[in-house]
């Protein structure tokens, strides 16, 4: 009996010993991008009671995957509102999964935007364009939040650059995000090239683009790809680069 009474006292003492260890470990986990999800009322409202309990019990990834499959079905049935809602839940549960942010942005900016533009129930073109722009913005928002959660990985910077390039036709911003992706670990070598290509389309920044493309060209044969040479030739003509400083024509 005495032993049973002693147990709570021992537990409290051990609890006091373990508390700073747990606290220190939680800080270390957060520093290395673990435990990124806050279990609060906001999350419970988003997920519902059952999903919240499952996520709380250590099955966050499985809940997110279940919702992802639901989102896939909703996409097949072109229920865009549901796709958006589900991807908001998925990305809240798995903020470190690049795939989910990328898919969410792709569905919104590429698929839902086209669906909005082709919406036969909306006779006014102006409203269809407005809806399309809203879808672009939703895609952009997913990518921006994804980058905030994963600032150390290049994929979402690239996706945002593609969004600016293809949907907003904003080459300056596209160049900026390709440039941000390029120095990150695991970034493909084309990020630097793409950043310079995009800059070459920006009015008033041709000189800077020319210098960056020329620098890539000077790095050797591996960088002398057809697009790079075409853009370099275009800029040489536009900037009136002296003949002796131009790249040889045989390179084409």
């Amino acid at each position, binding site marked *: 009996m005495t032993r049973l009474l002693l147990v709570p006292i021992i537990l409290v003492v051990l609890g006091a010993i373990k508390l700073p260890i747990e606290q220190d470990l939680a800080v270390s986990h957060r520093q290395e991008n673990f435990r990124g999800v806050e279990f609060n009322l906001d999350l419970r409202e988003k997920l519902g009671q059952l999903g919240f309990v499952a996520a709380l019990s250590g099955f966050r990834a*499985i809940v997110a995957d279940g919702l992802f499959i639901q989102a896939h079905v909703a996409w097949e049935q072109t229920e865009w509102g549901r796709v958006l809602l589900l991807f908001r839940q998925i990305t809240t549960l798995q903020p470190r999964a690049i795939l989910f942010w990328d898919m969410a942005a792709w569905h919104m900016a590429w698929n839902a935007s086209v669906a909005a533009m082709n919406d036969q129930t909306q006779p006014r073109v102006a409203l269809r364009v407005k809806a399309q722009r809203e879808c672009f913005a939703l895609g952009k928002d997913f990518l921006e939040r994804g980058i905030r959660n994963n600032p150390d990985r290049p994929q979402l910077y690239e996706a945002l650059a593609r969004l600016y390039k293809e949907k907003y036709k904003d080459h300056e911003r596209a160049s900026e995000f390709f440039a941000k992706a390029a120095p990150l670990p695991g970034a493909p070598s084309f990020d630097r090239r793409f950043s310079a290509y995009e800059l070459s389309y920006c009015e008033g920044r041709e000189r800077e683009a020319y210098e960056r493309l020329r620098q890539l060209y000077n790095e050797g044969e591996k960088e002398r790809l057809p697009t790079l040479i075409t853009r370099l030739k275009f800029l040489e003509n536009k900037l009136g680069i002296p003949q002796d400083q131009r790249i040889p024509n045989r390179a084409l």
Partner: protein
Amino acid sequence: MSNQTATSARHRVFSFARVSAITANTLTELTRLKVFYVLLLFALLLIGSSIFMAQFTFQQEFQILKDVSLGAMSIFTSLLAIVATARLIPQDIEDRTVYTILAKPVPRFEYLLGKIAGVLLLLAISTLVMSAVFLAVLYMREQSVMHMTLRHMSAAPREQVDDALRAIRSSALNIDIFPGIIIIYLKACLLATLTLFVSTFATTNIFTIVVMVFIYFIGHLQATAREYWLHEHSSGWVTRVFLAIVALFFPDLQAFNLVDDIVAGAAISLGLFLKTAVLGIFYTTIYTLLAAFVFYGKEL
């Protein structure tokens, strides 16, 4: 008299042989309970889900396959740890095996250590088998996707094919998954020893399992309660006392849920892995010692 002195001189306070005999016996008993059917269920779940996921892109397929496999591994090892340990002591008391063992010169601590070591061994075997099944399914899917890619890209330049294959390989197996699996095992060990501790003062195994289910949920909330208790001082004293109880009495089970983020691409450093592992071993040791402390005072 001299014979008796010789016998007591030969009797050691702690004997690995005695502990390992109890461990082997516990493992055999648990195996006879057909607990390994859980592994069959795991294999079926994995193979079934991998067939179902063939309609996704390979990145999506691998992500879901890894999430489902590691999530299932976590739930099966946790369930196995709780259910297998909860019946150890009550069953031995009911079968009167405990009296036969403790009537011999076997200290209670050795008896408990042997019992829990049997469960931990069972958990290790289960984790190893589940990992092997998971890796085999992942490897098969990876090979299948690679063959398909090679077939589709037969006319593409070598560099592009290499890039595509590299992308497939990097999406499939991430080396950080292995420390993640070890942490899943440590979490199961923690739950097993905690169950053993609860079962030392519980009267039935149903009671132990119910208590452990509550502890499992509260343990996952412990980190939230702890941070609120330590940093939020505006709440009333009743709330603060409640939060303090949760923070002090329960283990932080969220600390062992790293695998979700590992699958998502977060890399675990050696330092962080060791810190987490040490916390797991600390809890496991403490709960085993506490179980022994209560068991020594238990009237049998």
